[in-house]
C-alpha cells in the first residue's frame, strides 16, 4: 500500500473522488435527518436517525482526508462551501417531498426507501472497490465504513422487499418511486469528468464495472420481487459530479449551515 500522490492531475483526481464520496454521504445523511419524528413508526425513527448519524460520520471521515490533502478544515468543507463546490449526485440532494420538517411536511416514504436502498447497494459496491484503493488512507477509511454500511444495506433491503411485495397501494407507490429514482440514478453511478485519471491511478475501479455490479444486484432483487426492469439508469436532472445542482441543495445547505455560519469561530 502506498500513499503516493505525486503528479498534479493524479492528485486533483483523488481530491475530486473524495469530494464525491463525502458529499454523497453528507447530503443524503442530511435528508435522512429531516425524517426524524416523521418516519412511519418509532422504531424506524430510531433506526433511520442512527443510520443518518453513521453516514454523517462517514462524510466527516472523507472531509478529514481532504483536510490532510490541503483542502481546508473538515468543518468548513461541510459548512462554508458554496453549492457550486459540491460534487454529490443530484438525486441525493432532492427534497424528501413537499413542505419542510417545520411546515406541513408531506414526505414520500416510498421515495426515501428506494433512494436509500439503491444508494446503499451502490455504496457497498463502491466501498468494496475502495478498500483496495492505491491511496492507503482511502482504503483504510473504506474498510472502516463497510462494517457499518453492512447494517444500513440490510435495513433498506428489508424495507424495499417488504413494500414491493405488500398491498396494491404500496406496490403502486414503490413502482412509481423506482421510476423517479431511476431517472437520476445514473448521476450517482458516474465518477464525473476526471474518471479516467482516478481509474488509471488505481484509486477506484472503472465506473462501468461498478455500474454493472450495481445493476446485477438490483435486477436480481427486481426479478425476485416482481418489479419491472427499467433499462439504463439516466441522469435527467443534471450531473452533480460536474458541480451542477438544483435549488434543493442551496436550500439544504442554507438550513444546515445556519448555526455554524453565524459564528464559525465558536466550538460546538
Amino acid at each position, binding site marked *: 500500500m502506498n500513499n503516493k500522490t505525486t503528479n498534479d492531475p493524479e492528485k486533483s483526481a483523488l481530491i475530486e473522488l473524495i469530494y464525491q464520496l463525502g458529499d454523497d454521504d453528507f447530503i443524503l445523511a442530511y435528508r435522512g435527518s429531516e425524517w426524524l419524528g416523521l418516519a412511519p413508526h418509532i422504531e424506524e425513527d*430510531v433506526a433511520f436517525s442512527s*443510520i443518518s448519524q453513521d453516514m454523517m460520520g462517514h462524510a466527516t471521515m472523507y472531509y478529514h482526508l481532504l483536510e490532510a490533502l490541503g483542502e481546508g478544515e473538515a468543518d468548513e468543507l461541510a459548512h462554508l462551501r458554496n453549492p457550486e463546490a459540491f460534487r454529490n449526485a443530484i438525486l441525493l440532494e432532492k427534497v424528501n417531498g413537499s413542505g419542510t420538517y417545520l411546515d406541513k411536511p408531506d414526505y414520500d416514504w416510498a421515495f426515501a426507501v428506494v433512494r436509500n436502498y439503491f444508494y446503499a447497494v451502490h455504496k457497498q459496491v463502491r466501498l468494496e472497490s475502495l478498500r483496495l484503493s492505491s491511496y492507503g488512507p482511502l482504503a483504510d477509511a473504506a474498510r*472502516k465504513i*463497510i462494517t457499518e454500511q453492512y447494517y444500513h444495506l440490510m435495513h433498506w433491503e428489508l424495507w424495499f422487499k417488504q413494500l414491493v411485495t405488500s398491498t396494491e397501494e404500496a406496490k403502486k407507490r414503490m413502482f412509481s418511486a423506482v421510476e423517479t429514482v431511476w431517472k437520476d440514478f445514473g448521476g450517482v453511478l458516474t465518477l464525473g469528468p476526471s474518471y479516467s485519471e482516478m481509474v488509471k491511478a488505481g484509486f477506484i475501479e472503472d465506473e462501468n464495472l461498478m455500474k454493472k455490479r450495481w445493476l446485477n444486484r438490483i435486477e436480481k432483487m427486481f426479478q425476485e420481487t416482481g418489479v419491472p426492469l427499467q433499462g439504463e439508469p439516466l441522469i435527467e436532472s443534471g450531473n452533480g459530479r460536474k458541480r451542477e445542482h438544483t435549488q434543493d441543495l442551496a436550500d439544504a445547505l442554507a438550513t444546515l449551515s445556519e448555526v455554524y455560519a453565524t459564528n464559525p469561530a465558536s466550538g460546538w
Partner: protein
Amino acid sequence: MEAVLQSMNLKEKILLALKEVKDPEISSVSILDLGMVEEVQEIEGSVIIKALPTFAGCPALHIIERDIKKAVSKVEDVKEVKVDFVFSPTWTTDRITEEGKSQLKEFGIAPPPANHVMGEPWSIDCPYCGSSYVTMENIFGPTACRSILYCKSCKNPFEAMKPVADMN
C-alpha cells in the same frame, strides 16, 4: 498502592490512567476494555495515544479525546499528550476484553458474540437473567453501537452491542 505505582514504568502508569477513562455513553466500561486503545507511544514525557473509533459517527469521540488528555496529563513525568484517532486496524467487537464484557452486562447491555462472522446468525443472552429466549426489536438503538431487544423470559427490554467484524 504507592509501592506498586513506584515499581511501574511510565507506560504502565499511563495504561493505568487510561483504565479510568470511560465511554461517556456506557459509563461502566473503560476505553481500554472496549479495545479502543491501539498504541501508547512515550518519548521523554511526550505521549501519543493511537485510538480506534468504535463507530465513525460516534459523537462521544471528542469527549473521549478530552478525557484521555485529562487523565494522562495527571500522570507524573508526562509533559504532553496527543490523541490520534486512526482507522487501521479497524475496531471490531472482538477487541472488547472479558472484563469489558462483564462491565457491559452490568450496564444492561449484552456483550457482542466472540468470533462473529458478518451475515451469520447472532445469538444473544439477556444480560439480566441469562435467557436466550429474546427477540430483536430494533437492530439500531439509542447509540450507533447498540441494538434494542426484549427478553421473553424475564420480560425486560435490554440492549446489545452490535457485532462488528472485519469484513476484509
